[in-house]
């Protein structure tokens, strides 16, 4: 499986759940579209209107730190974002992403490269192969460890809702 998409380079470490999805919306039961419309609102207020289906995000370390709010994953997913490629993820964010079948790609080399070349790479197309564990910026290819064991089982089921549904029988 290979995805191609434009990248948004968020050139910061510790991008937290509050700037991805503000707390004032966390206890509203929003539709998918409404959630998507607030994606990254307090980080880059132009993101939601300019993001396109299939786009990917590249960020620094500890992406998604802070609250356990799952909308920090789903708002990006519903906005059409295919994957987040980061140097590392906060633990709850990582689990939430798996549970929503949304790719959390941990690849410090790709993150560093994109941030160092942010000017020329911003909004350029990259390709991502989550199965083989490769991400390519043109000729420049980086490897990462693909998902393993339990995480993959949940991911393959299409997320934790589908996985649990199957288990309940």
């Amino acid at each position, binding site marked *: 499986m290979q995805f191609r998409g434009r990248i948004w380079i968020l050139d910061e470490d510790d991008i937290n759940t*509050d*700037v991805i999805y*503000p707390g004032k919306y966390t*206890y509203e039961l929003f539709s998918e579209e409404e959630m998507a419309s607030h994606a990254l609102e307090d980080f880059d207020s132009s993101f939601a209107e300019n993001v396109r289906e299939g786009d990917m995000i590249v960020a620094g370390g500890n992406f998604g730190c*802070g609250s*356990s709010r*799952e909308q920090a994953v789903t708002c990006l997913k519903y906005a059409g974002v295919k994957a987040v490629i980061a140097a590392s993820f906060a633990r709850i964010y990582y689990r939430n992403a798996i*549970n*929503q079948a949304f790719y959390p790609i941990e690849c410090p080399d790709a993150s560093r490269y994109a941030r160092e070349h942010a000017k020329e790479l911003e909004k350029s197309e990259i390709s991502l192969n989550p199965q083989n564990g490769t991400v390519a910026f043109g000729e420049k290819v980086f490897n990462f460890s693909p998902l393993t064991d339990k995480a993959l089982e949940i991911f393959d089921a299409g997320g934790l809702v589908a996985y649990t549904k199957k288990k309940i029988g």
Partner: protein
Amino acid sequence: MGSTMIEEILARSSGGESASVGDILFVRPHRILSHDNSAAILGIFKKLGGKKVWDQDRIFIALDHAVPPPDAKKAKSHTMIREFVREQGIRYFYEGGTGICHQVLPEHGHVLPGVVIFGSDSHTTTHGAFGAAGIPIGRTETASVWALGETWLRVPPTIKIELNGEMLEGVTPKDIILYVIGNITADGATYRAVEFHGPVTSKMDMSGRMTICNMAAEMGAKAAMIPFDSTTGEWLEKVTDAEYQPVLPDDNAEYERVLAIDCSEITPQVARPHKVDNVVPVSELGETRIDVALLGTCTNGRIEDLRQAAAVLEGKKISEGVRLLVYPASKRVLKEAVDEGIISILLESGAQVAIPACGPCLGAYGGVLAPGENCVSTANRNFKGRMGCKEDTGIYLASPATVAASALEGKIVSYF
């Protein structure tokens, strides 16, 4: 080789003999906690085909994040939760105003040493203060646990943090943990468990231990634990007669890293905007005016915290133009504060005292900031926009004593 606390606790909670770092186990919690987000969780529970929860006596729900509800939508979420609680016969439901989930859970005897607490809230790490493993998970995962009674976890490596030396006069557990986070950084314990040891930890009361474990979420920890001792035992005696079997780390347990902190060097600390690890001593902060002082929340809303603030505020008036908001962590705390005369002291100083709940900490209601305002807060996060407004606002995290002293001065100062 011996076991760390998390290894032993996860082994026990998954029905195994032992567990080692990297093992994937199916863990069954003693309690699973959620709050106002239960409205969303119950929706997911239905979507994943859930009919009856796996055990109505292990699910804990406390309304606290939007209490009392500021609008009809949030009020309706509460109604949905109450209906679900009735339908399912969920035994441990706490109405809005009882307090913040992380205070109510131990206060009502739900946290026991050696157990696993899952929580659909990132500050579930708080419960490690009782020698339990408080492990935060997301909403969908919580719905799945409601249905199945278990979820998978990878056994994490453990960082041992020794709090050595002695705390200086006027220094509080909040200052210690801010200092530690500044040192270890915001992702210093990601995917890891943390154990706090050392003489300062042993001498600390349960309130301080809860502050420490609560804030460990801000270094990315999966769980943060303090070994059971007589302080834990005496506190628990007042809230439960349940039997429990504490888990202590083995002498030959293997730690990934040992971090020794000399607390004798630590003065009052403050975390500057917009990251929790952006920590400096208050004395090095430079002139910083404030508009709001927030005292309370799950980090520092206990009676010990209110006493600290009252000692600073007694007989004095807060600076003109400053709003001092007080959110006690629970009704029990509030009652105690009333009985001790602390609430009178706070009110007379000019404070606004609110219903026990999360308040403006998460920016949804109850005292959010206006553009351009600064807040000094006893809460646990200072992210941009966290208190409901991102336009040129700044949140500074500090101890209850520092928050009180700053309210008096209109700028951030420590009491000592």
